[in-house]
C-alpha cells in the first residue's frame, strides 16, 4: 500500500493543505488567512484533510511544508516553493512547461521540463504594487468579492493603468480613479494588466519561448488575470506560449510538497533498511 503524505503550503494570503496516498489525491483544504494565525490554520487544515480521508495522524508517513511553512512543528520536512510548484504544476497539467505562481507578495515564473525539473526561474523583488495582496486590498476597497474580480475585469472596455510602482502610492492612484468615476471593471483590469505585464516579463527572463504556462497560487482562478496574461502574451508577440489555469491550481504548491514528501519518505526508508541490514 502506498504511503500517506500531507502537503501544506503556507502562503501570505491563504493556507492550502492536501492529502495523498501515493499519486492518488484524497483530500484538500484552503483557508484564507484574513488576519488569523497561519500556523493554527495549518494545524486545522491538517486535521481536516485527515478527517475527510477518514485517517488518523499516525497513518501519515510524511508531512511536507512549503512556502512560509518552515516553522510548522508537526512537519516532517520543508521544500522550497519553486521546487514544489514545479512538481505540483506538472502533476496538474503534464503539458505545463512553465508555472507562474502569483502569491500575495511575490510573483514567480518557473521554467520546467516535462518531469517537473526546474530549468530556470525568476521572482519579483521589492515594491509590490503588482502583487496579489495589492489586488485583494483594492478589491476590498471597491467592495468586490475576490471571486468576482475576474468576471468584472473581463467586462472592461477601457482599462485604466496603475502607474505607481509603490503599492501604497498605487492605492492612492486607485482612490483617485474612483473619485474620477472610473468604472470598477476598468480599474480591476488595469491592475490585471500591470500584473500580467510583470509576469510576462518574468517569464521572458526565464528563457521559455513555447509551451503551456500553468497559473498556480491564489490568483490562478482569477479569470481576469488569465485573460490579461493571454492578451499580454499576444501583445508581446510570444505566441508560442499558452496560458492556462486548472481548477486546483491553488493547491499546486501543497501537491508538490506532498509528492516530494513521498519521494523523501521512500528515500529515508531505503536508507533505514540499508542501515538495518
Amino acid at each position, binding site marked *: 500500500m502506498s504511503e500517506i503524505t500531507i502537503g501544506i503550503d503556507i502562503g*501570505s494570503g491563504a493556507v492550502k493543505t492536501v492529502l495523498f496516498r501515493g499519486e492518488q489525491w484524497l483530500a484538500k483544504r484552503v483557508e*484564507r488567512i*484574513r*488576519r*488569523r494565525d497561519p500556523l493554527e490554520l495549518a494545524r486545522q487544515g491538517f486535521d481536516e484533510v485527515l478527517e475527510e480521508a477518514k485517517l488518523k495522524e499516525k497513518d501519515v508517513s510524511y508531512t511536507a511544508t512549503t512556502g*512560509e511553512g*518552515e*516553522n510548522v512543528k508537526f512537519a516532517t520536512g520543508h521544500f522550497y516553493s519553486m521546487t514544489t510548484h514545479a512538481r505540483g504544476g506538472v502533476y496538474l497539467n503534464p503539458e505545463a512547461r512553465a508555472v507562474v505562481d502569483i502569491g500575495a*507578495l511575490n510573483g514567480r515564473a518557473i521554467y520546467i521540463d516535462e518531469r517537473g525539473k526546474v530549468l530556470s526561474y525568476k521572482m519579483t523583488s*521589492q*515594491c*509590490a*504594487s503588482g*502583487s496579489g*495582496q*495589492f489586488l485583494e486590498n483594492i*478589491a*476590498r*476597497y*471597491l*467592495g*468586490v*468579492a*475576490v*471571486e468576482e474580480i475576474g468576471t468584472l475585469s473581463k467586462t472592461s472596455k477601457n482599462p485604466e493603468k496603475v502607474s*505607481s*510602482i*509603490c*503599492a*501604497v*502610492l498605487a*492605492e*492612492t492612484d486607485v*482612490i*483617485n480613479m*474612483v*473619485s474620477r468615476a472610473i468604472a470598477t471593471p476598468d480599474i480591476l483590469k488595469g491592475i490585471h494588466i500591470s500584473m500580467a505585464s510583470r509576469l510576462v516579463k518574468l517569464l521572458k527572463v526565464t528563457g521559455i519561448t513555447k509551451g503551456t504556462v500553468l497559473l498556480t497560487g491564489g490568483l490562478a482562478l482569477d479569470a481576469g488575470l488569465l485573460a490579461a496574461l493571454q492578451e499580454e502574451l499576444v501583445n508581446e508577440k510570444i505566441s508560442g506560449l499558452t496560458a492556462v489555469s486548472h481548477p486546483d491550481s491553488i493547491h499546486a504548491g501543497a501537491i508538490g510538497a506532498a509528492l516530494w514528501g513521498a519521494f523523501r519518505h521512500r528515500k529515508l526508508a531505503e536508507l533505514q533498511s540499508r542501515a538495518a541490514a
Partner: protein
Amino acid sequence: MKCFIGIDLGSTTTKAVVIDESRSVLGRGITNSRSNYDTAASIAKQEAMVAARFHLFREALAKGGALNGGLEDFIAQLERDFRLEQFLEQLADLEQVCGRNVANARFGDAAKGVAAALVEVFKRLREEAPTLFAPGAKRKSDFFRDIAGSRYLAVSEQVAKDAGLRYDMLLNVFDRSIIEVENRVYADAVKGHLLDALERTFVALPGTRKFAEKIRNPIQSVIDTALEETYVVGTGYGRARLPFSKEHIRSEILCHGLGAHVMYPSTATVLDIGGQDTKAIQVDKHGIVESFQMNDRCAAGCGRYLGYIADEMNMGLHELGPLAMKATKTVRINSTCTVFAGAELRDRLSLGEKREDIMAGLHRAIILRAMSILARSGGIRNEFTFTGGVAKNEAAVKALTGLVRENYGELTLNINPDSIYTGALGGATFAWRAVMEEGKAAEHREAA
C-alpha cells in the same frame, strides 16, 4: 456667526478645523478619506461643525450655571450618546444595504441562509452598540468603517460557524456594502440626533433631569444659531480634487508650517508624518516656510506602514503604540517598505522575537526614516513641533524624543494631541487672513 474653515484632505484621513473671528478654535472634525473627496470633505466639515456646536453648548451651559460641577461629565455623556445615535443610524443603513446586496449577489442556494445570518449579525451588533459607546469603552478607531467592520468580522465569524455557513460570503456582503454607506452624508440628521442624544443623556444621568429645561433651552438656541461658512481653505494631498477655486487652495507645506506656528509660535522645525508622506518643514519666526523636504516616490516609513502592521497583527491602529511601549528591547528592523512590513514581521516572529520588541523596532524604523528627511531639510532647530496622525502614537513619540536628543541635544519638543489637525488649522488661519486681513469677499466656496 462667522466661521473660517480649513480642510486638510489627507490620503488616509480628512481633517477640518473651524475657527471664529477671534481665531479661537471652535471645533475639529476628522473622517477617513474615501474614494469620494467631496464626501470626505463634507463629512469632516460636518464633524467639525458638530464639535463647534458642542463647544458652544459648553459655553452656553456654563453661562446658564445649571450643571455646576457636572458640566464636563454631562457634555462627555452627551457626546457619547450623540455618537451612538449616529452609529445606530449608519448601522441601520448598512443592514438595509447588506440585505439588498444579498439579493443581488449570486449566492445561489446559500442566499437564504446568508440573509438569515445577516439578520442575526445585525441584531447582535445593535445589542452590543451601547457598550461600544459606554464610558471608558475602548474603540479601535472612531470611524464607522473601522468600528462596524471589526465588530462585523468578529460577530459574523461566530454566526457563520454556528449556522454552518461560509464566512467568506458574509465578508463579501460587508465589503460590497460598506463603501455605499460610508459615502453617505447624514447632514440633515445631525439636529435630530443631538436632540435624541439629549434624551438619552437625561436617562444616563438622571440627576440632571431636574434641570431639563435649563439645559434644553441653551442647547436649543445653539442648535438654532446659524454657523456661516464664511471662508474655506483646502489643503492636503488631495487638495487639487477639492471642488474649490485656486484661491481657496494652499499647499500643505504652507498650511502645516502656519498651523504649527499658530499652535507654538516659537516653532522652527516641523515634522509631519501623514499616511503617505512625511514632511520636514523649516519655518521662520512668522510661520513662513523657509525650506521643506518630503519623502520621495517610495512611501516607505509613512503612517500607512503602521496601518499595514495593524492589519497584519489584527490590531487597531491605536493599539500599536501601547504594545510597543511594553518592549524590553528594540529589534532592529531595516525595511520600511510598507508592503513588505508584514513579511518582515512574520520573519521576526518566526525567529522567536517578541511582538512588543518587534513593534518597538518598527516604530523606531519609521522615526529613523523621518530623521533622515529632517536631516535633508536642514536638521532640527529649536523649537521642534511634531504633527500628523503618528504624533498621537506614544511609541513613535518615544523613539523620536530619544533620537532627537541623541542627534541634536536638548531642545523643546512640541507635541499636541490635536496635532493631526495642524494642516487644517493652517488652512483655517489662511481663510481667516483672507477675509480679515486681505478683505477677500466670502465668495461662494463649493461649486456644484
